């Protein structure tokens, strides 16, 4: 037995959401004064794990020991009391409050128990900001007026305003410039010198080499490697751990003769959006699936939404079947035959209070109506035909859509566009929240739709999905296409190298 128990030890943590097992028996051990890196692809379970650690999610099973004693984190406050602070990727600051108010939110220095001592709060905030190397941030300023990088510093100051022993940082460098990253690393160095432990999440391998001590790799909700030395483990081995899969997805066969020669159905010409992605050219032929691979923040979803007209492009245009669309107009895109299965299915696609039928028919109501009067029999029949074609379960379109699994909800979205007679299908993370078993079926559906002459543009953060399903792949990094190749000529390692290669620091 070691003389000193580890600061934190999690063992056998499981957490399931409807249809998905996000964590499947994860172990994690963090020592005081170390930078422990958490690696894994999107969907590997990193976010769920840190939410468990922050007390935001309750694990289904598993044990959590804090300095050798078993604890339960019932709420974020409980985690904070122990000295665990989390800096999320999406910052959780109140924009309309000042820096000092944000830093002390929930534990304001008070006089007589309730009068907020604003001056004391500002003074201690200023001290924290000096310690973080950002004395120029005025504690009295509104957080909404600060840059993203400055907001991150405020978020960190908030973490440090507690008596913190463990800080979780979720991709802290994603929004930072190179010299800001250097400052971040300096802060991390100071923290571990004080004996604070840091759990550091990043996609950038060379950052992990610079500041990490040990690495835990997550894959498909499991820890596949625990406590690897961060500086000496070869890159090839880390990538292999991240990608080697227990579950092999079954991808449908590609057609033997790729659908070339014909006129492209979808043409994207010089399309760009300031600050999101650089001018992009691509064509998709009927029967073809083109995939965009890239990390979060590489501009994938933004590209799809701009093609669909949900965002207004800065430059460029979208051409369907030879006709240019009115830019930034969803209705023009839908009329031209484009359909989108968006990334956030519940927030962007589904009417959760409604039946499957109504969710499917919503984009083609004019087909079942005369002078606005809906023929409900025809509507039900058409919805039934469309959902049957995709073998949606249960085989009863009158059930509420919220009772369906993620995979079947996605099929309902596809059925919507099928019914509309759409010819260009934009798929944004089509298997997010879809459990492993249902994925193969969804892949087969997408391939069949392409075989029937649809042009499909697919975006996914899961590299194997893009490689397995698409005919052609465009690799994106920071809003730019860095590589284009037929999917057969790429493998997962190559793509991961391309999307992770380099960093703002290099």
């Amino acid at each position: 037995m070691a003389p000193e128990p580890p600061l934190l030890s999690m063992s056998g943590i499981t957490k399931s959401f409807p249809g998905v097992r996000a964590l499947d028996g994860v172990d994690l051990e963090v020592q005081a004064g170390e930078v422990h890196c958490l690696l894994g692809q999107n969907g590997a379970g990193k976010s769920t794990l840190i939410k468990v650690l922050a007390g935001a999610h309750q694990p289904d099973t598993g044990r959590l020991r804090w300095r050798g004693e078993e604890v339960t984190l019932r709420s974020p406050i409980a985690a904070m009391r122990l000295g665990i602070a989390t800096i999320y990727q999406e910052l959780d600051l109140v924009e309309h409050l000042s820096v000092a108010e944000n830093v002390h939110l929930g534990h304001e220095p008070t006089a007589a128990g309730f009068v907020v001592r604003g001056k004391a709060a500002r003074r201690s905030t200023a001290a924290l900001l000096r310690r973080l190397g950002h004395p120029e941030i005025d504690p009295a300023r509104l957080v909404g007026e600060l840059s993203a990088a400055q907001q991150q510093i405020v978020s960190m100051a908030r973490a440090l305003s507690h008596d913190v022993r463990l800080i979780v940082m979720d991709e802290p460098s994603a929004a930072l410039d190179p010299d800001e990253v250097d400052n971040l690393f300096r802060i991390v160095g100071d923290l571990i010198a004080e004996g604070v432990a840091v759990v550091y999440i990043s996609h950038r391998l060379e950052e992990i080499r610079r500041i990490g001590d040990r690495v835990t790799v997550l894959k498909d909700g499991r820890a596949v490697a625990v406590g690897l030395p961060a500086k000496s483990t070869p890159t090839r081995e880390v990538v292999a751990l991240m990608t080697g899969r227990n579950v092999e997805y079954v991808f449908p066969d590609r057609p033997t003769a790729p659908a070339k020669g014909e006129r492209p159905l979808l043409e994207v010409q010089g399309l760009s959006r300031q600050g999101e992605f650089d001018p992009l050219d691509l064509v998709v032929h009927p029967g073809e699936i083109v995939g965009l691979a890239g990390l979060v923040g590489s501009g994938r979803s933004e590209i799809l939404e701009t093609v669909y007209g949900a965002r207004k492009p800065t430059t460029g245009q979208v051409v369907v079947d030879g006709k240019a669309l009115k830019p930034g107009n969803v209705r023009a895109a839908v009329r031209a035959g484009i359909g989108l299965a968006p990334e956030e299915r519940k927030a962007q696609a589904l009417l959760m209070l409604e039946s499957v039928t109504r969710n499917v028919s919503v984009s083609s109501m004019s087909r079942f109506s005369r002078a606005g009067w809906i023929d409900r029999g025809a509507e039900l029949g058409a919805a039934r035909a469309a959902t049957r074609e995709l073998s949606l379960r249960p085989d009863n379109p009158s059930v509420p859509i919220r009772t369906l699994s993620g995979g079947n909800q996605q099929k309902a979205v596809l059925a919507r566009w099928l019914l509309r007679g759409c010819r260009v299908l934009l798929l944004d993370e089509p298997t997010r929240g879809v459990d492993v078993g249902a994925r193969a079926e969804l892949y087969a559906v997408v391939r069949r739709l392409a075989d029937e002459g649809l042009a499909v543009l697919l975006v996914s953060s899961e590299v194997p999905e893009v490689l397995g399903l698409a005919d052609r792949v465009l690799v994106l990094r920071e809003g730019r296409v860095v590589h284009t190749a037929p999917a057969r000529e790429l493998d997962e390692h190559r793509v991961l190298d391309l999307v992770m290669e380099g960093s703002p620091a290099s």
Partner: protein
Amino acid sequence: MTQHVSPPRGSADKVPPASESFAWRGVFARADVRTLSLLGVLAVLILIGGITKPDEFLDTRNLQLVLTQASVIGVVTVGMTFVITSGGIDLSVGAIVALASVWATTVATQEYGFAGILFTAVIVGVGCGLVNGLLIAYGGMVPFIATLAMLASARGLALQITDGRTQIVSINSVLDLGERDAYVLGIPPLVLVFAVVTIIGWLVLNRTTFGRRTVAVGGNAEAARLAGIDVRRQRLYLYLLSGLCCGIAAFLLIILSGSGQNTNGNLYELDAIAAAIIGGTLLSGGRGTITGSVLGVLIFTTITNIFALNNLQSDVQQIAKGAIIVAAVLVQRRTASTT
């Protein structure tokens, strides 16, 4: 599909209790629980009215009066139900009723007779709805604020037109419709209008693309937009519809009172919202029921009638109304969480 388990006559006392509850379940499955519970509340109220004032309350004339009084606010509530179902709110309905009723009863308007009054009331209502709709749908204003501004302005304009005086209507064809023994097709005219508006409202909400779009916009505006629905145009139409209902209600009020006043329609916005909410329309949008709203209106009007018959002051009425709103919403939250 339906469970018909009614036993043959004569063997009723041998029926096992299980099949009886089965039959009940069949009934419940068809008419939804919410509507039935509202009908239950109404039945209890009628019982209370019948017990406390058996002669006055159950008198045909009194029941006719209840329905007539429900008509004006009822028409407003139908429009309000559409707006709330779409995730919006219209605080200006009472003020629009007031403005339309005084504009339609000015000396100048009355020169054009029955048609002039009707036309003006409707056009003023639709015009106010148009302003609301443009501000909200295309000006990007929050419905609460835009219609609050309309409330203030319309009331102010109504006061300016009347100078605080009651404008008496002198058109006989209008006044005749307000007589106690006026009937059209055997029904008091106001009640007939209320019924027609209700039926059309129900059909539009449940059977037309307009209704579907309303529900979609209220349920998830972003999803509706990405599904290709013109969300802004739909919002504009909805406030136009609410304004139209206010115009019709103003005309009914003119018939009922034989006059136009700038104080008309006071707090109609609250009554209409309350009736829609206790009826089961979600304040957050995405689900609306015309049947529920109409039952909500009838419940409130019946309470008012019973309290008046029993000589209880309006302050007691207000307290009772508040309690009913709270109780209804709490009960709905419970049923929503168990289903």
